[in-house]
């Protein structure tokens, strides 16, 4: 994998170098954690990149490096992109946070944007999706659809984003089904179809009949389809993998943000910020809601979506207690974006402990 990234990077360098001679387009680089063909997280970022290219045409040039491991390797890849003349670099996974920050300090003239992180600097901003909004609607659907009153959550890594979304899903399920319980399994990977299948089966073996996932492959949907259970798609429209089991997919759309930031950097008006996009900005949407859902479930999905989109409802509005009985969100308070990025507790009713 290391070698591959290196080779891809070198290939990019060569390609970029050759193109530079002609005109001097604005250069944007992307770093992906998975393959662009994952049909999930990285796939959607790449779709955003393609939209960006379409929007600006000849004025810009984009390159990407896929399958970049989180850690030391990432630093090298980001450095290479910066060295090869990119004006703006998007690094699109939580684990790229520290490497991006380090490189940003060394290349003050290049603008860096990091997805899902919380560290910023003079030339590094962050952007993130309000995935908890999609998860809340998922939780509502799961709570209504479960017959065993047990829903399952396949987690990647116990980072605030994932923990927050587990809470959001569970509060939503509980709001429509007071008897519901949730089982959580961590697979320690963003992308491992085999392991995600194993996790899905392990959950279904223990009575789970609706699956939510915070990993990027469609494997859990396929597993659910095989066993006549339900599952909710992640990041991208995954309905084709499970025509019957698929409830809906929470789809990411990064293009609006990529276009906005690129324009700002080109115009010289860019200021690093902490950007959050969700239903309201149309950066999250519900894709391919299944026609086979009962009418009341469908109605509740639409209603919840509309309420969150309009800002009428925010999932993290107090009072909220954690599962040890402490009040973590006071009555009348709604978590700020900064607080949302630091959630490290499970809500009341989740019997698990957060792995440390």
């Amino acid at each position: 994998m290391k070698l591959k990234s290196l080779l891809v990077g070198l290939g990019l360098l060569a390609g970029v170098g050759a193109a530079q001679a002609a005109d001097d387009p604005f250069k944007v680089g992307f770093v992906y954690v998975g393959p662009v063909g994952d049909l999930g997280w990285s796939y959607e970022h790449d779709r955003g990149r393609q939209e960006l290219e379409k929007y600006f045409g000849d004025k810009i040039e984009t390159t990407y490096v896929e399958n970049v491991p989180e850690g030391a390797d990432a630093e090298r890849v980001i450095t290479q992109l910066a060295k090869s003349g990119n004006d703006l670099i998007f690094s699109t996974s939580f684990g790229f946070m520290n490497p991006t920050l380090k490189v940003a300090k060394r290349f003050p003239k290049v603008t860096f944007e990091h997805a899902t992180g919380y560290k910023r600097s003079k030339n590094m901003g962050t952007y993130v999706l309000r995935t908890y909004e999609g998860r809340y609607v998922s939780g509502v659907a799961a709570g209504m659809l479960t017959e065993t009153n047990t829903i399952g959550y396949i987690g990647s890594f116990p980072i605030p984003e994932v923990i927050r979304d587990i809470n959001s899903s569970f509060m939503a399920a509980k709001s429509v089904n007071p008897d519901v319980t949730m089982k959580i399994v961590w697979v320690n990977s963003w992308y491992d179809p085999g392991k995600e299948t194993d996790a899905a089966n392990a959950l279904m073996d223990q009575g789970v009949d609706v699956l939510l996932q915070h990993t990027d492959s469609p494997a859990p949907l396929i597993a659910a389809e095989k066993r006549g259970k339900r599952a909710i798609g992640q990041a991208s429209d995954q309905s084709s993998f499970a025509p019957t089991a698929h409830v809906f997919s929470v789809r990411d759309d990064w293009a609006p943000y990529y276009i906005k930031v690129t324009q700002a950097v080109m115009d010289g008006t860019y200021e690093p910020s902490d950007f959050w996009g969700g239903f309201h900005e149309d950066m999250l949407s519900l894709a391919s809601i299944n026609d086979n859902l009962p009418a009341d479930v469908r109605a509740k999905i639409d209603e919840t979506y509309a309420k969150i989109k309009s800002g009428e409802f925010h999932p993290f509005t107090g009072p909220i207690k954690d599962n040890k009985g402490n009040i973590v969100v006071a009555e009348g308070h709604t978590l700020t974006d900064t607080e949302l990025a630091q959630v490290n507790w499970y809500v009341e009713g989740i019997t698990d402990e957060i792995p440390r």
Partner: protein
Amino acid sequence: MDIDLITQVLFAAIKTGTPLLFIALGEAICEKTGVLNLGQEGMMLMGAVVGFMAAYGTGNAGFGLLGAMLIGMVMSLIFGFLVLHLGANQVATGLALTIFGTGLSAFIGSSVVGQTIAGFQPVYIPVLSDLPVVGKVLFSHDLLVYLAIVLAVVIAWVANKTRVGLTIKAVGENPHAANAIGIKVLRVRYLAVMFGGAMAGLGGAYMSLVYTPMWVENMTAGRGWIALALVVFASWRIGNIVLGAYLFGLASIMHLVLQGMGWSISPNLLAMLPYVATIVVMVIISADKFKEKLLAPRSLGKPFDPRQMA
């Protein structure tokens, strides 16, 4: 943990171990003749993508298997030509093969991303499949699970009880002596490398036709490497490989099941389970052979040139 869950866990363990078993069996034979092929992951991915495309195109999973074995053999021939004919470094060439296979499979597979197929369904065996517990654990699998077991038995027999097995051993232990008594060392190695390729292709096809019947880039997620380690831990013994593969399957399932049951152990620690379990058991199994170190074939990784003397 009730009996139903135990049944499910054991059933899943056998399924999870099967792709590893295919690859490890092929690599074991390859290594027994003295050739170390680190390209398993690349051959596996090519097997997965070609197998999927063949099954998708023809609507017949059997063609998928055939295609996967063929592409595995083609890939291994590239490797064979470089290391056997040209005497290239086996480790470097194997790594290159993995990188090549990973990239090429992503490239040719892009047209079938997002498609699904029926794949192989479990076969029903009269009487046996209906047995309580045992029926579910052992006799309700798909054809490939049984194929892997049959292949393991056949390979064990060939390796330990036949002249072919002796030839393989001779080539791996001392190619110059084998050459002196008239064994065509390079031909034996070519055949072993191709056999390893076909098995890696099968392992890949198991992923894309049975395990998760779809194709996505890099879907094997490092299983080729695990199989390589398995061969070493099993000290090149077929029986140990079979045991190790299923044990690895069990450990990787347990780590997920225990979490679902609410064990508050760090998932990182649990994720280590398969590897730790494999190591521990292999150490115990080979305890009485400790003095013989790892029992590696003596010429492993060394190129053979008949013009040079040992």
